[in-house]
């Protein structure tokens, strides 16, 4: 135990010597979280967007004005023009996402009495299919609403002359556009900040592989590990002595990143990231995740012959684990087989543990199985590190 204490103190001393590297170690993940959160703010934003630019090419007849007015209820950015040169060019230049051309004979289509040209919709080729379907659907509703309004007006006149009372029903339906209420379930889908902050914070935590492998391989190549042999230090003591300072760094890194998520990111976006109560469960999950990330770093350090090897293999492995683990693409949007593959990534279990706490208000009983998986991963990584440990090059 005494040896471990000396090794930990020494490692911390060495780390503190390079203040610039230490600063980078803490600042870079914070910057990563800030920019990623800002960049990904709208990724899962519901697909009704003010940002879709729609150009409506129509005359200014009463009917078309009514259609445009109805369509504006869906909060699209709508430009109403009467003449347009080069529809395709406009779409390619991405001035408009959608161009809707309404023929002058629109009234005939709606009344269905005479033949007429159809309504034409042009979509920007890169516009997501789901957005295209959404615009089509909303436009159809706008047309129907306009027709209902017209019918209602007529019925109202008739009603005034005491001819029809049924119009009331249609009128009510027309007035009450929010008759469908969107309900939420317990399967909470995180907002972008709630997903990205823990996900990318974990991703950054696993990058502890770079400083740890640097330190480990430097000590091995410089003969320090070999010298430590003479002091009756076991491999396990030495590895634990290396591990603990980096676990501390990881915990500090994660705490700083969460603070950025909670206090700085909301300054730039409308989304909030609620850290919730800092309770013992959050501390426990952070500790276990740090143990998992540093054990992985230790494994990479012991199997690598050089820093160059560790620096290419380590980050690549993290990117793959992050890809499977739901960091880059959220687990809930992955295809089913990918969702099964994600169970192989420690990042998945770590991320789910955090989402349990932040979004689902989970208790230790719910999070514990995930923590067992992470501890199992750490034990295996530590065991292989012990097996692969070499005192010298």
């Amino acid at each position, binding site marked *: 135990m005494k040896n471990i204490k000396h090794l930990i103190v020494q490692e911390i*001393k060495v780390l503190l010597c390079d203040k610039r590297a230490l600063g980078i170690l803490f600042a870079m993940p914070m910057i990563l979280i800030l920019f990623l959160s800002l960049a990904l703010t709208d990724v899962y934003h519901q697909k009704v967007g003010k940002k879709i630019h729609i150009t409506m090419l129509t005359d200014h007849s009463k009917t078309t004005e009514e259609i445009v007015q109805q369509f504006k209820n869906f909060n699209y950015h709508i430009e109403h023009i009467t003449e347009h040169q080069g529809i395709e060019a406009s779409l390619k230049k991405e001035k408009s996402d959608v161009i809707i051309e309404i023929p002058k004979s629109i009234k005939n289509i709606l009344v269905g009495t005479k033949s007429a040209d159809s309504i034409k919709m042009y979509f920007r080729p890169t516009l997501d299919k789901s957005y295209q379907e959404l615009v089509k659907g909303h436009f159809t509703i706008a047309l129907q609403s306009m027709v209902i309004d017209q019918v209602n007006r007529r019925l109202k006149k008739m009603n005034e002359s005491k001819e029809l009372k049924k119009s009331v029903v249609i009128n009510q339906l027309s007035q009450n556009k929010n008759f469908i209420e969107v309900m939420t379930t317990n399967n909470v889908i995180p907002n972008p900040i709630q997903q990205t902050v823990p996900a990318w914070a974990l991703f950054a935590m696993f990058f502890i592989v770079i400083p740890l492998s640097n330190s480990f391989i430097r000590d091995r190549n410089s*003969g*320090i590990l*070999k*010298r430590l*042999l*003479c*002091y009756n*230090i076991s491999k396990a003591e030495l590895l634990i002595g290396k591990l603990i300072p980096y676990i501390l760094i990881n915990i500090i890194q994660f705490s700083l990143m969460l603070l950025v998520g909670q206090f700085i990111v909301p300054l730039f976006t409308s989304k909030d990231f609620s850290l919730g109560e800092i309770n013992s469960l959050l501390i426990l999950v952070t500790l276990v995740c740090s143990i998992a990330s540093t054990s992985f770093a230790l494994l990479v350090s012991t199997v690598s012959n050089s820093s160059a090897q560790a620096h290419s293999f380590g980050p690549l492995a993290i990117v793959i684990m992050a890809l499977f683990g739901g960091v880059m693409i959220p687990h809930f949007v992955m295809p089913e087989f990918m969702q099964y593959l994600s169970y192989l990534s420690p990042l998945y279990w770590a991320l789910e543990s955090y989402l349990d706490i932040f979004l689902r208000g989970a208790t230790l009983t719910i999070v514990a199985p995930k923590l067992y998986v992470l501890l199992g991963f750490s034990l295996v990584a530590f065991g292989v590190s012990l097996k692969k440990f070499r005192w010298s090059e």
Partner: protein
Amino acid sequence: MGHIVEIDSLTYTYPNALEKSLDSLSLNIKKGQSFGLLGPNGAGKTTLLSFLCGQRKDLTNSIKLFGSSSNELHGELLNIGYAPQELALFPMLSGIENLLFFAKLAGLAEDKRLGRVLEMLKAVDLQKSQDKLVENYSGGMKRRLNLAVALLNDPKLLILDEPTVGVDPQSRNLIFEKIEELKSRGVTIIYTTHYMEEVQRLCDSVAIVKEGKILFNGTLDSLLESQKNESLEQCYLQLTGYEVVD
């Protein structure tokens, strides 16, 4: 006089290597002896020394140190001082910080630790540079500090693996003087080098190793006599061959 080091038919092959690094190597070193271990590059000298320091305890049934099998050694390891060929120091820490760290590992009592560290700094003439970062030390200063670390625990067995590589004459002389002083105090020394004049100055016995096998083991005088040659370098070349070893 008892043997401090007893090696009996030690054979070792590195993982994935085709040839043996140590091949049925047997060697005894008496207490108080100053023993030169010579051999071309790749002869197995450093491998042998790392075994003596306790590396690969699982494979060292054929080594006895201080009368105990080396896989049973625990506290006895603290009687060994080892200065590896590499400069096994923390470059971003000062000389005194390096020594204090290794002094803690050597188990020196807290109240005696600083005193011993200062004593060692004085012994290798580094007291003026004790607060300087090791990365700013010259090659000779680093080598002297490397030796000071090995001497911290006042070892009974001192293992020096090419301690004068890249060292200026002044530092080399200081290292020699320190080793001679230790020799006079009865410390057993194992010394590897490629410089024959160092062996002639410091060692009374010598073993010449090539390809993991011992070609000669005896006193310096008997070596010179056996090869009918006055120069140690000629003896060495006659035994190990004149072809360049990579």
